[in-house]
């Protein structure tokens, strides 16, 4: 088991390094000059020497591979550079906005798994009933509906029409807890929808697969009550494959935050990332991509280890 964990950890570091390379060169592919774009408002661009000076200050005048080396070195020492457009420290910008996005993120993750599992289990146990048909329909709908459209519809119904929830905005939880929960209700629901539908579908199919197997028939044949059969015999083997999509829902929710935060005017990381892409703010995009990938990576790592722990075949095979 220890060998398995060490192997996984080593591999995770390798992947992260690769992701850093991809991210770095992807951002350098972005067209346009970030320095000029950022200085357009407040500096006289006709003076080429100022442009050169600012570029040198950000290290953007060096060859690309040197820039990459500098960035990697700095990244691991906690110096994530300064924003090209505002000049603020990227670390500070992240720390300031992270709590907002984390709140949305964990609430969405919680909802998607809780409701998803309930939906999946119910529709598997009531297979081929109207309820099953309805839940299957809802989950296909949930997978298909684009987050921005769902957000628009919810904003229209709850914000414009019934006026029971604020259509947009954000206040920190510790300032006004009730207002905060009202404000995050819609965004978290929208962010959770896709994951919820995915989890429901997957739970349903995994559970059905297990229920169809011989040992469940045996358990029923020996006279166990149906509830005992499901809870003590069917759940664990069905839960193991379901675990594998945990990391996937992580990435999905993170991707959704770009659009959600824009639509609900929430000052979080997704909003910052989106602005950074449009302003060619390299340090922010790079940090964002690496941190985002690390989140998924860590989620996958935890899943893998849990998997190896639950299913001995995996760790022996490795």
């Amino acid at each position, binding site marked *: 088991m220890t060998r398995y964990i060490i192997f996984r950890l080593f591999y995770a570091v390798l992947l992260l390094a690769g992701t850093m390379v991809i991210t770095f060169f992807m951002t350098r592919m972005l067209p346009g000059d970030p320095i000029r774009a950022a200085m357009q408002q407040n500096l006289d661009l006709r003076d080429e020497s100022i442009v050169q000076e600012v570029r040198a200050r950000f290290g953007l005048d060096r060859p690309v591979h040197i820039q990459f080396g500098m960035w990697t070195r700095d990244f691991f020492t906690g110096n994530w550079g300064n924003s090209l457009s505002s000049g603020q420290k990227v670390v500070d910008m992240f720390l300031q906005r992270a709590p907002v996005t984390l709140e949305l993120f964990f609430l969405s993750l919680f909802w998607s798994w809780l409701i998803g599992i309930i939906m999946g289990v119910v529709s598997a146990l009531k297979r081929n009933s109207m309820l099953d048909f309805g839940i299957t329909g809802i989950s296909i709908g949930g997978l298909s509906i684009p987050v921005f459209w769902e957000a628009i519809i919810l904003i229209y119904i709850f914000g414009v029409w019934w006026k029971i929830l604020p259509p947009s905005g954000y206040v920190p939880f510790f300032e006004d807890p009730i207002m905060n929960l009202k404000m995050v209700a819609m965004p978290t629901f929208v962010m959770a929808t896709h994951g919820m539908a995915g989890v429901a579908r997957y739970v349903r199919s995994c559970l059905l697969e297990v229920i169809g197997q011989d040992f469940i028939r045996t358990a029923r044949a020996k006279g166990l009550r149906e509830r005992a059969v499901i809870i003590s015999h069917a759940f664990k083997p069905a839960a193991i494959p379901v675990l594998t999509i945990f990391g996937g829902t992580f990435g999905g929710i993170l991707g959704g935050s770009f659009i959600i935060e824009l639509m609900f005017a929430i000052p979080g990381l997704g909003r910052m990332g989106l602005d950074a892409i449009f302003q060619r703010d390299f340090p922010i995009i790079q940090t964002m991509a690496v941190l*985002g990938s690390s989140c998924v990576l860590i989620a996958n790592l935890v899943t893998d280890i849990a998997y190896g722990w639950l299913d001995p075949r995996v760790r022996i095979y490795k």
Partner: protein
Amino acid sequence: MEETNKKVDETSEHDLEPRRMSTVGFRGLLKTLLKNRLSVIGIVVIILMFSLALFAPLLAPYDPNEPDYYNLLKGPSAKHWLGTDDLGRDLLSRIIYGAQVSMTVGLGCTVFSLMFGTFMGVLSGYRGGAWDMVIMRICDMIFIFPGFMFILIMAAALGPGMINIIIAISLFGWAGPARLVRGNVLAVREMPYVEAARAAGASNTRIMFKYVLPNCLAPMIVAAALGLGAAVGMEAGAAFLGIGVQPPTPSWGRELRVGYTYLSTVPLYSVAPGLMITMAIMAFIALGDGLRDALDPRLRGEGKKV
């Protein structure tokens, strides 16, 4: 016929015959598919969407780019069934033309990612060694990268335009098919019938096209249907953020973005394009589900990694 297809791994006699989709037959596949109510709805909607895209000039009542400054942001009327947009252009016509972008991007992405993914998957599974190592590690990196962010950065880097958004989505989308194909290639490579073909002197290319790839066909068709839906969604998302297809080309994601600004006055402006996107994606998912059940009963664990 279907029975031989299922039992092929167990009986040694059948091991000498490649497991091919053609054993089920296109007609058999269609028959099973048409029994599934959801996939029938899916097929109908997909046919409708492609007809909209193909026959847009015939179906649209107006030129989608012709402004009418006397009728800005009007609600539905006998003249304009869905009303007009912020420049007085007929919304119905713009939505009909919008199908062109969505369907082209969907098809383009699926074709590109499947072709590239298959190529990489075959290379990885059949060559093995360093090829396999490098290609699979790249796939792993793509899998952990937050997908939508990858596409946004890529599309921004490549610049505006339909071809570029197709490339951006495909650069992300090939990893799934590649892994799928590799798994199948690895499983099939050691099969007695491949060995038999090799012993008979078949070239690598022949083995690949005649014996290995037909075996991957079933999961690939399912991946294609689901991938089409995903690509349509990604394109709409990017267009909503102003990345990808540029105005005045009508695109559902873009219409929605403009419509969102006038949500409280003309709600239909944002409802209609969103409904089209949702229906298109739903149809592809329903078709994908139906295909999966029809093609291989053992694949019922959906999305399971191979």
